[in-house]
């Protein structure tokens, strides 16, 4: 255990050194260098969707959640959209997966959007999971790239575990967050059972004006959260925000990408929220854990 901790702190120090080198290089060349992704260590590809074929997303890789959730409660979060797999809401075009949130009356909802999952198609324990995305903007937008324990049908949430690689509130266009949900730290509730969440602030940039890489590197007893070339958080079982059992060493997880509207993360849209809104995904890539770091 202690050995592991030592290793982990080394892991954190290393990227800082690399970052310093990066700064020197930038001063010298006056432009960004190739050597920016020093925060990642795993390079053996196990899954990739580059979204290069126009039309519906590859059915060999993605399935959909349809509707307003099994409890008719906005997927447990009070979300306002009806998820569909119509091309209006989800399509691959010009090299991007495009999820579009539309304000329209559809079935029982006032909005439509889409949620894609790799459930039953691809899951993996440990490794590097990243997506390059441009997010929508405006109050009530809740885009997310996240993961759930693949045994969720037999080991229900939150015991299956949830890793939020990236979530964004549309009203904070410069801030994203990553989070872990597990038993005892599953969600905001009166007992204060908050998820283990860490925010990242772009400060002089936004999520909706350009593409950014959102990812994790996940190994035994740790999950590193990064944005572009910045490693902004390492969660371990010892983290003060992980107020329950570590449920991330018990099997593979599958990925989800969705654009929710409203719900208890950012609240509902307001009269300034512009529709339709789009979430663009350039690629989703997964790499194998190599056991070295």
């Amino acid at each position, binding site marked *: 255990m202690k050995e592991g901790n030592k290793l982990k702190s080394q892991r954190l120090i290393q990227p800082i*050194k690399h970052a310093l*080198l990066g700064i*020197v*290089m930038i*001063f*010298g*060349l*006056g432009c960004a260098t190739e050597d920016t992704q020093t925060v990642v260590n795993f390079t053996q590809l196990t899954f990739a969707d580059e979204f290069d074929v126009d039309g519906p997303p590859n059915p060999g890789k993605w399935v959909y959640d349809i509707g307003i959730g099994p409890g008719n409660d906005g997927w447990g979060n009070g979300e306002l959209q009806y998820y569909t797999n119509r091309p209006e809401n989800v399509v691959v075009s010009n090299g991007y997966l495009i999820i579009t949130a539309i304000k329209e009356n559809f079935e029982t909802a006032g909005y439509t959007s889409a949620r894609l999952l790799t459930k039953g198609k691809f899951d993996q324990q440990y490794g590097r999971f990243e997506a390059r995305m441009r997010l929508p*903007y*405006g*109050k009530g937008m809740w885009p997310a790239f996240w993961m759930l324990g693949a045994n969720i049908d037999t080991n229900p949430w939150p015991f299956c575990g949830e890793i939020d690689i990236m979530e964004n*509130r*549309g*009203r*904070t*266009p*410069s801030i994203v967050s990553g989070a872990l949900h597990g038993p005892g730290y599953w969600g905001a509730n009166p007992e204060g059972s908050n998820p283990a969440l860490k925010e990242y602030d*772009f400060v*002089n*940039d*936004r999520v*909706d*004006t350009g593409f950014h890489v959102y990812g994790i590197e996940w190994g035994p007893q740790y999950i590193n959260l990064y944005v572009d070339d910045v490693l902004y958080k390492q969660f371990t079982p010892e983290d003060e925000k992980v107020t329950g059992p570590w449920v991330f060493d018990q099997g593979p997880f599958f990925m989800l990408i969705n654009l929710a509207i409203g719900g208890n993360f950012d609240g509902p849209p307001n009269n*300034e929220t*512009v529709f339709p809104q789009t979430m663009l995904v350039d690629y989703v890539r997964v790499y194998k854990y190599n056991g070295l770091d």
Partner: protein
Amino acid sequence: MKNEKRIYSRLALFLGLIIVVAVGCERDYDFGDDAKFAKFGNNPEIFIDGFSGGLEYLPFGGSKFDAFSVDTDVKYKGEAAMRFDVPNAFDPSTTLGFAGAIFPDYGGRDLSGYDALTFWAKATKAETISEIGFGNDFGDSPYRESTSKFLVTKQNLRISTAWTKYIIPIPDPSKLFNETGMFWYAEGPDENGDGYTFWIDELQFEKLGTIAQPQPAIFNGEDETGVNLVGTERQISGTTQTFNLANGQNETVLAAPAYFDFNSSDTDVATVTDNGLIQAIAEGATEITATLGGVPAKGSLELTVGEFSFAPTPPARNAADVISIFSNAYNDVPVDFYNGFFEPFQTTTGGLITIGDDDLLQYEELNFVATGFSNPTVDATQMDFLHIDIRIDEAIDAGDIIRIELVDFGPDGVFGGDNDSGGSITLTSADLGSATWISLDFPLDDFNGPAGGGAFNGLTNRANVAQVVFASDATIDAILVDNIYFYR
């Protein structure tokens, strides 16, 4: 490994310097197509702890000239802040009852690398600053053919008693490569007549990188319809730019028309100038639209241009029975101006136009506008009536008014001096009609209503009449005026 990498990067740094120097040398001798000789400094600082280089302080005429001072006691950061003392009502140091100034750098600065004007501010009480922004140059910019061409105004900026950072986005930074208007403001007492003090610190242009999602608009985003007569003009109003800021809030500023690119679907019917002035050329219909920085603006105008109709020709009169201010039928007295452009509260544009052989006054974006004739003033004591012809081509709404004011400068013949008087007559919607000339004859004894923004309450003298004012309080946007004369 790491050491090697470090050495490499040092080498890269060294090489980089050499390349930069080499390129720099080359530029000294290369006067190719890309060469720009008029280089402007890009100093972003307006007031950090004192005036930045080149900055001037020029208060508005009639404002409290000493409203601005440098405060070394109250400040957000550093050594000093800008302090603004908004006067109480009837403060004798301001004839127009407000504080306001521009802070230009007439050397010009290249602001194209920034995306917002930012500052920290607080006040002695929670208040709203009427107008604050940049791009105001009093018409003295050597690089602009029109006054305050790229004016930006944030209206009713809410400030509190706590230091807070404010962001006024630049509608299109690429336009501001030679801007002189660094900062301006105008603010009067509150509705109780109370003044207050506010402070501004760390005033500068910044590249925030978080000013995004532009939503420009003309005509305040409305799709309007309108009628203009051949030869007349119409100012495109309600030109705004809206950005989403890092705090998720949309921020809307008034952006001068020059930020926009205008389009007329039929340029044989009407054209639009860079400054958003529509000129009706020939009978027909056209749609006026705009873009800002390539983004289509919300709002449009379906314009119908009709044949010009002149005001009725005034009857022949003996010279002794008429004093004409503006008419082609009589000899006019000397007139100083047909639009006083009283900053900062007047919005009205326009003035004298000529169609065929006839002179007319055309005003747009009307709230109030004065025609001045004080050199000399007019002695109307022997006259009984004021005649005016007015034409309104927009639909008349229930709350619409036209107020006609006369201002007398008193025995001294100049504005001020406690001997001025003024009075008004107000026409309501029932008195007005659309798309027709309205001929009005007012007894001079009837000018008993308020005038001069409440400064006067009745025309008690008319031996030194010096101004006639048309006001709509922004209820009616555009009017044509002809044949202004006193008679008996």
